[in-house]
C-alpha cells in the first residue's frame, strides 16, 4: 500500500501513465507503430525513420520551451503566452542577420553562429521585457505577455520588411534536420544539450530552490534574503533563451519563415506540458523532468491523432479533453475522494477473504 502511494504521489506518475496509455493504444492498434527503420534521405545519407523518431524530432521545440515555461510558472505563478510570437521575432531576427535584409541572397551574409547569438539576445530581450512587466510592475503574467502575444508577429514581419527570406545555405537546415552521416535527428542532440545545461544549473546553483521559495511565498522568501523580483525576472530571461533555441529549430526545418503561422498555438502546448507534468500552475514546487516528459507526451498524442486521421483543426479539442482530465484529477475534492477510495479497497478485500 505504501509503495503504491509512493508511486502515485510521484510527479512523474501522471506523464508516465499518459505515455504508457498512449503506447498501449498504439500497440493494440498497430504493432508497426514502434518500428524504427534505417533508410537513406534524398541527399544520400543514412537516416532513422518511424513514428518514434518523428515524436522525438517534432517534440523537441516543445521540450525546450517546457524548460523555460516550468521556471516561469514556478516563480511567477503565471504563464507566458507570448512564446509563439517571440519565436517568430527571434526567428525573424536570425534570418535578417543571415540574409542581410535581402530576401533572396546567393550566400549567407553572416556565420550561422552569429545569427544564432543575435537571436538569443533578441529572445532574452523579449523575455526581459515580459519579466520586467511581471517582476517590477507586478502585472499578471498572462496580461503582461499578452502585449507581445498580440504585437509579436507584426514585429517579426517588420524586422524583415514584410518579406519572407529563404536561407540558401544547406548547412542551416542541419539544425532542424539531419547532419550528413548521423542518422539521428539533430534536434534530439539540441534537446539533450539543453537538458544537460539545465540539470547542471539546477544542481550547482540555487536557482531551483530560490525559484520554488519565491513561488511558494514571495514575502517570506524576501525575509530570508532572496530577491523575488530578480528571480522572476531571471526566469523570464531563461524562457527567452529557450525561445531562441526553439526558433533556431523551427526556422531551420524549412530554411524560411512564415510570420503568421510559425509556432502557432505552441504556447498552449507548452503550458499544457507543464500541467501534464503535474506542476502546479499557480507556482511553487516544480519538477523539470516531468514537464519535459509532458512535452513529449503531447507530441506523442499529436502524432497518434495524425495517425488516426483526426482533422488537424480538431486536435485542439482532443487536447482540451486532456486538460479537463488533468484539472479534474488535480482538484483537491477529487483527490480526497480518490484517497478514501484507496483506503476502502483493501478493507473490503479483507472482509471478502
Amino acid at each position, binding site marked *: 500500500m505504501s509503495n503504491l502511494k509512493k508511486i502515485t504521489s510521484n510527479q512523474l506518475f501522471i506523464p508516465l501513465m499518459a505515455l504508457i496509455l498512449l503506447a498501449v493504444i498504439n500497440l493494440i492498434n*498497430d504493432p*508497426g507503430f514502434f518500428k524504427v527503420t534505417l*533508410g*537513406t*534521405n*534524398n*541527399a544520400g545519407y543514412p*537516416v532513422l*525513420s*518511424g*513514428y518514434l523518431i*518523428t515524436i522525438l524530432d*517534432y517534440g523537441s521545440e516543445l521540450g525546450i520551451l517546457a524548460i523555460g515555461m516550468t521556471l516561469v510558472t514556478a516563480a511567477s505563478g503565471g504563464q507566458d503566452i507570448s512564446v509563439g510570437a517571440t519565436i517568430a521575432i527571434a526567428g525573424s531576427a536570425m534570418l535578417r542577420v543571415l540574409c542581410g535584409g535581402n530576401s*533572396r541572397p546567393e550566400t549567407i551574409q553572416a556565420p550561422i553562429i552569429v545569427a544564432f547569438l543575435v537571436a538569443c539576445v533578441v529572445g532574452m530581450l523579449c523575455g526581459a521585457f515580459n519579466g520586467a512587466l511581471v517582476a517590477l*510592475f*507586478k*502585472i499578471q503574467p498572462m496580461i503582461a505577455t499578452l502585449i507581445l502575444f498580440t504585437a509579436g*508577429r*507584426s514585429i517579426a*514581419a517588420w524586422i524583415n520588411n*514584410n*518579406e*519572407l527570406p*529563404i536561407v540558401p545555405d544547406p548547412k542551416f537546415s542541419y539544425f532542424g*534536420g*539531419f547532419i550528413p552521416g548521423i542518422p539521428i535527428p539533430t534536434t534530439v542532440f539540441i534537446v539533450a544539450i539543453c537538458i544537460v545545461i539545465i540539470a547542471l544549473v539546477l544542481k550547482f546553483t540555487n536557482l531551483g530552490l530560490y525559484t520554488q521559495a519565491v513561488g511558494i511565498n514571495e514575502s517570506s522568501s524576501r525575509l530570508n534574503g532572496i530577491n523575488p523580483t530578480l528571480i522572476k525576472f531571471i526566469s523570464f530571461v531563461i524562457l527567452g533563451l529557450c525561445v531562441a533555441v526553439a526558433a533556431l529549430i*523551427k526556422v531551420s*526545418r*524549412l530554411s*524560411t519563415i*512564415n*510570420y*503568421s*503561422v*510559425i509556432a*502557432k498555438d505552441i504556447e498552449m502546448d507548452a503550458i499544457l506540458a507543464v500541467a501534464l507534468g503535474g506542476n502546479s500552475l499557480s507556482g511553487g514546487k516544480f519538477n523539470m523532468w516531468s514537464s519535459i516528459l509532458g512535452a513529449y507526451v503531447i507530441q506523442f498524442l*499529436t*502524432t497518434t491523432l*495524425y*495517425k488516426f*486521421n483526426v*482533422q*488537424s*483543426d480538431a486536435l485542439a479539442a482532443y487536447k482540451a479533453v486532456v486538460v479537463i482530465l488533468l484539472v479534474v484529477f488535480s482538484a483537491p475534492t477529487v483527490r480526497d475522494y480518490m484517497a478514501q477510495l484507496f483506503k476502502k479497497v483493501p478493507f473490503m478485500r479483507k472482509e471478502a477473504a
Partner: protein
Amino acid sequence: MMKRVLAVLMASAMTLSLVACGSAAPASSGSAPASSGGKIKVGIINNDPNESGYRTANDADLKAKFTEANGYEASFAYSLKNDEQIQYAQNFIQDEVDYLLLSAADTAGWDSVLKDAQAAGVKVILFDRTIDADPSLYEASIVSDMAKEGQTAVDWLAGQNLSEYNVIHIQGVMGSAAQQGRSGALDAKVAAESNWNIVKQQTAEWNAEKAQQIVQSVIDAGTPFNVIYAENDDMAKGAVAALDAAGISHGVGKDVVVMGFDCNKWALEELLAQNWNYDGQCNPFQSSYIDDIIKKLEAGETLSEKTIIMDEKGFDATTITQDDVDNYGI
C-alpha cells in the same frame, strides 16, 4: 496606486495609437479637396500585407499602380478584422474619396456602410474577395475563380496519365474560399474515377510545419502514395521536406508528383529545377483591372460585366521558363 497610474498610462497609449492608426490613412488626404487638382481620390482597404506572400504582392502591386504619377491620390488602410475595415470605410466616405477599393475580411456586414457610400456618391470596387451584399451597391468586383484554379490543376493531373492516383491532399484553412474551390475539383474527380484514391485528406491550415507532420505520418505508416496535392506553396514545401528526409524522390519523372498553388517565386524556381511538377496561379495583380474600370467610369462608359474573373495560369515543370518565373512569381 502604481497599478492605477500604469493602467491609465497604457490606456492612453492605446487610445493614442488607435487615433494614430485611424487617422493615418485619411490624414494624408485630409487637406486634399482644395489641392487635389484633378487627381482621382481613392481609398484602399486591404487585408494585412504580412498575412501571406500573396497579400504582400497584392499590396505592392496596388501601391505601384495608384501613384500621383498615374493621376491618383491614394490612401491605404489595413486590417484583418471586418469591423475595423468598416470603420476605415466610414472614414474614407467622410473624407469624400471618389472611389473605395475593398478587399473585405469577411463577407457579411457591409450593407449599411456601402449604402452610406452610395448616398455620398462614392463608387465602390471590390477586389480579390466578394461580399454578401446587393450587387447594386458596388460598381464591379474583380476576383479569382478558385474552383476554376482547382479544376485546371486536376485536369492537368489527369493529363499525366498515371496508372493509379494515390493522393495526399493537404488542405488550407477549412471553409476559406481558396480551400473550398481547390478541394472541390479534386473531391469530384476522386469520387468519379475508380483509379483515383485519397490516401490522406487533412487540413494543414496553410502551415508548412503541419503539412510536414501530416506527410511524415503517412510515410511512417508505410502507405504508398504518388501525388501530393497541396493547396498552397508553403504546404507543398513542408510536404517536400518530409519526402526529402525519407528519401522519396519527387518531381518530373520521379516517384511522387508535387503540386502547389499561388506561384511564389521560390516555388516556380522549384518547378524550373523540376523538383516540383505543377503550380497553379492565384493572381494577385488586380491593379491594372481596377485602373481600367476607373478609367472607363471616369469616361462615362458603362461596364459590360459586373464580376470580372482574372486570367489565371497553371505552370507545368516541363514547360516553365525563366521568363515565367520573373513575370508571374510573387
